[in-house]
């Protein structure tokens, strides 16, 4: 599983950093998403789905492992 975060699309609402602070942070400069861990444990999938659903601009995506 791999996470991608698009800082151009991000509006710095910080949902990701609120829900999963160990995986996402926000830049001090403009609050845009900073990915702390691009390949988290598969056990975090539910949390990541919540992050994707709550991100107000669709800046976060998950690529699930093929066949997983």
């Amino acid at each position, binding site marked *: 599983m791999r996470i991608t975060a698009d800082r151009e699309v991000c509006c710095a609402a*910080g949902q990701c950093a609120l829900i999963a602070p160990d995986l996402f942070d926000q830049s*001090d400069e403009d609050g845009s998403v900073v990915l702390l861990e691009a390949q988290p444990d598969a056990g975090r999938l539910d949390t990541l789905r919540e992050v994707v659903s*709550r991100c*107000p601009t669709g800046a976060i995506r998950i690529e699930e492992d093929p066949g997983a």
Partner: protein
Amino acid sequence: MVDAPHPTVSMPTQRSCPFDPPDGYTPLRAQERITRMSYPDGSPGWLITRHAEAKELLTHKSFSARQEGIISPVPTELQYDGRPADPGAFAKTDDPIHSQYRKLVTGFFTVRRTRQLAPMIERIVHEQLDDLEKAGPGADLVEVFTESVPSRVMCEMIGVPESERKTLQRHVETLGRLSCTVPEALAAVSGMSGFLSRFVPARMDDPRDDLLGDLIRGGQLNEQELMGMAATLITGAFDTTGNMLAMGVFTLLEHPDQLAKLREDPELMAGAVEELLRFLTISHLGASRWALEDVEFAGQAIKKGEVVTVALPAVNRDPERYNNPDQLDIGRTDHGHLALGHGVHQCLGQHLARTILRVGYEALFDRFPTLRLTVPGDEIPMRDDFVHYGPRSLPVTWDD
């Protein structure tokens, strides 16, 4: 395509219970289609009461938040009449202009930065609670505590002197009251811009070590834009969090089982704040957008220029999205409410609000464990003619 039906519905605003959305939303949400709604000026538009359609609308590229196309969904003399937003007032603009302004301040409102403000917020909260103690049983919690805390926090962040705060608070209050007349609104706007036109140039000559000082030193905004930005921060911060703080206290006092649960397990606080945001959704009029072009949305043909209003309080009670949506459950783990909006305009100050609410509820119920209303809950006067819903006053008492 079939012509849109003639609108027969106007926006529901009457509540039979202060903790629930207006009753009129429930039958509309059960209908198959989004609601054809008549706006008070006679123009036809649309009302959204379901969660999924609300999320889609608020991220849809064919819909604009630009002030010039927005009309109020309820009768009021406060209309934009096609005027664009003032420079710097980014909430009522679209990208790219919106994000150019917003990105200059987002760094101040991150999860981490707003949590770092907790000591400042705690100091203000406790000073206001000292005042409550001095005022004694019978005091109005709204006046002494809930409306003062968020305005003091924002004033401290942008360096507005305390001597100006209550006047600004009155102006924000006036501009959020739907029964406000044009002369009253003009007086409030000129009071606010009068203050900002003295305050902003003075700070430009002598920038302080605060949010406004940082914006000034950044050098990307002129005087007009700095004034627009400051006005946006003041109006965005004052009565929003204030009413949410007050509604949360009122709600917990009237749901003693939930308050007891929270006292037993303080770890529930973060989730309790989210649930109170969902359950109460104080944005009485929700969020409005207008169509930039003819567009098919949710199976309906929406014409260019038509306004669509998302009834956020109704959306957050959608039974298709939440189990037992009308039940307040501070242990609920399914958040993802739209109380703070969705899309690029999602509330800039949301994490600041969360910190203020958490610190505020904790300190209040900790210092005043026997806090209770002096009148029955159904006698509390409500702000049902304001953009943001909440109690007008909360007379409280406690045992010394």
